[in-house]
């Protein structure tokens, strides 16, 4: 132990320096800086009206047929009309997403917490994690279907495989943000390793963990829909292939609309959690 201490140079390693990525930063490209005024909100709505109306008008003006590009009004009507038929599929996709994501996120969080405690093990494991992160897990779906059939199982596994590594690398980045002065503070009161983890490391990692959860959830959604398109008779992805094969384009776009809404809801959910629990970093 003696001599193994780090040279104390805390003034140079400010805790703020390591925080280049945060949920609030990530939100910047989506929501812009700060809160919008009423006029800005009105402008955003006006732009939407102009775009949607413009598309509708142009499609009608040039007599574009529905099977090539349905107009916004046709999509809106399809969404309203078909929703009772689409709704169960939305449910199936949500089941796959929530269960696969939960499994993947829990495994990813635990692995990140364990691995960062042992820098040596981290070095060994790092290249394999990279493979997990960069491999599109969608590619494994045919194999999973072969092994587990056309039910929920292969899809849930694929979602977990897609979400887990994303959660893990981001959480690991968070856990690695050691602030020696804060750990020293805890140690000066005789804190145990476990106490240091729960009271210093975990809260410091929280913003990055939330980023990881958000990215993991969105990757999970992509993978769930993709897996549904590969095989099996249910889920929103399956609806996409079905509607497009039947050239029911308004219905097809209605499903796309539902999927993007789902993505936005995931983003907003984690953004709000971050605002509530990790705003100290802003």
């Amino acid at each position: 132990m003696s001599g193994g201490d780090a040279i104390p140079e805390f003034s140079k390693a400010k805790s703020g320096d390591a925080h280049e990525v945060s949920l609030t930063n990530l939100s910047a490209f989506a929501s812009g800086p700060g809160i919008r005024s009423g006029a800005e909100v009105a402008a955003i709505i006006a732009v939407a009206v102009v775009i949607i109306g413009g598309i509708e008008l142009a499609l009608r003006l040039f007599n574009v047929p529905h099977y090539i590009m349905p107009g916004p009004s046709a999509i809106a009507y399809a969404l309203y009309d078909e929703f009772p038929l689409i709704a169960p599929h939305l449910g199936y996709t949500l089941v796959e997403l929530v269960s696969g994501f939960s499994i993947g996120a829990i495994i990813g969080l635990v692995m990140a917490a364990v691995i960062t405690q042992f820098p040596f093990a981290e070095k060994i494991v790092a290249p394999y994690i990279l493979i997990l992160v960069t491999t599109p897990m969608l590619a494994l779906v045919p194999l999973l279907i072969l092994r587990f059939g056309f039910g929920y199982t292969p899809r849930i596994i694929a979602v977990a495989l897609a979400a887990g590594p994303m959660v893990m690398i981001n959480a690991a980045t968070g856990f690695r943000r050691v602030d020696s002065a804060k750990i020293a503070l805890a140690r000066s009161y005789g804190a145990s390793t476990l106490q240091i983890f729960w009271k210093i490391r975990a809260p410091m990692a929280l913003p990055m963990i939330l980023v990881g959860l958000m990215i993991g959830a969105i990757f999970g959604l992509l993978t769930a829909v993709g897996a549904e398109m590969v095989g099996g008779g249910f889920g929103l992805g399956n609806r996409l292939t079905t509607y497009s094969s039947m050239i029911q384009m308004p219905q097809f776009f209605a499903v796309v609309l539902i999927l993007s809404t789902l993505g936005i809801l995931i983003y907003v959910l984690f953004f709000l959690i971050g605002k509530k629990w990790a705003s100290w970093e802003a």
Partner: protein
Amino acid sequence: MNAGSAKTPKLGVQDATKIYHTASGDLLALDRCSLDVHANEIVSIVGPSGCGKTTLLWSMSGLHRLTSGTIRLDGKEITGPHSDIGIVFQEANLLPWRNLDANIHFPFEIKGEKPDRAWIAHLVNRVGLDGFGGKFPRELSGGMQQRAAIVRALALKPSVLLMDEPFGALDSFTREEMNRLVEEIWLDTKTTIVFITHSIEEAIFLSDRVVVLSSRPGRVAKEYRVPFPRPRSLEIMATKEVFDLTNTIKMDIVGERVRPKARERGTAEIVRIRP
């Protein structure tokens, strides 16, 4: 041995030697440094940067183990962090995800004790943070953050307070204010204080003794008594005696800085100069 006995220092540093093993070789930070701090005393440690001041303080806190030598608190050797020693770190070191109340309760939480609410309320009032308990560190100025850090350090009623360049990042007015606050707290509690600083004025204002460390490897080069009465008014601080003492110490430190960097000794090889 009891704390009050004339023979036993409150904090006794005997031949403290510390070698850091770094990637680029061993670094001798402290070399047989000896220093006694007596009960109810304020001792400041000054010296050229990189001379091992912080290393010495961290060893006193029990956070760092010495390579050789001993540090005794009331005659008992310190082998690890000790609840009778409070630390005020550089730049407040508050936990940004906790509000002030939660930051101040942190020591009790780690110890698994019930917070001493009356004592904390007294301290919070003393440093002028009444009504700020729900604020988060980022909402407060550097001076206020450091006030909260002082309350946290005193929360467990330590008999020794170690302060590691606590006001280095503050502007000079806030710094003077904080110095006055430390003096007030000391007059109130008579807590033994070891204070590390780059500012000679600050050291003289606060201390009973100013210890000058040599450039690395650190050992005690000079020691000065500061005989002025407390509370130390602006008038006292403007006297010729204070001015002369300031200059003497300044000359000492400059002398230490130009002195050949390292006294090679025995096995320790100095290959890296800390910036």
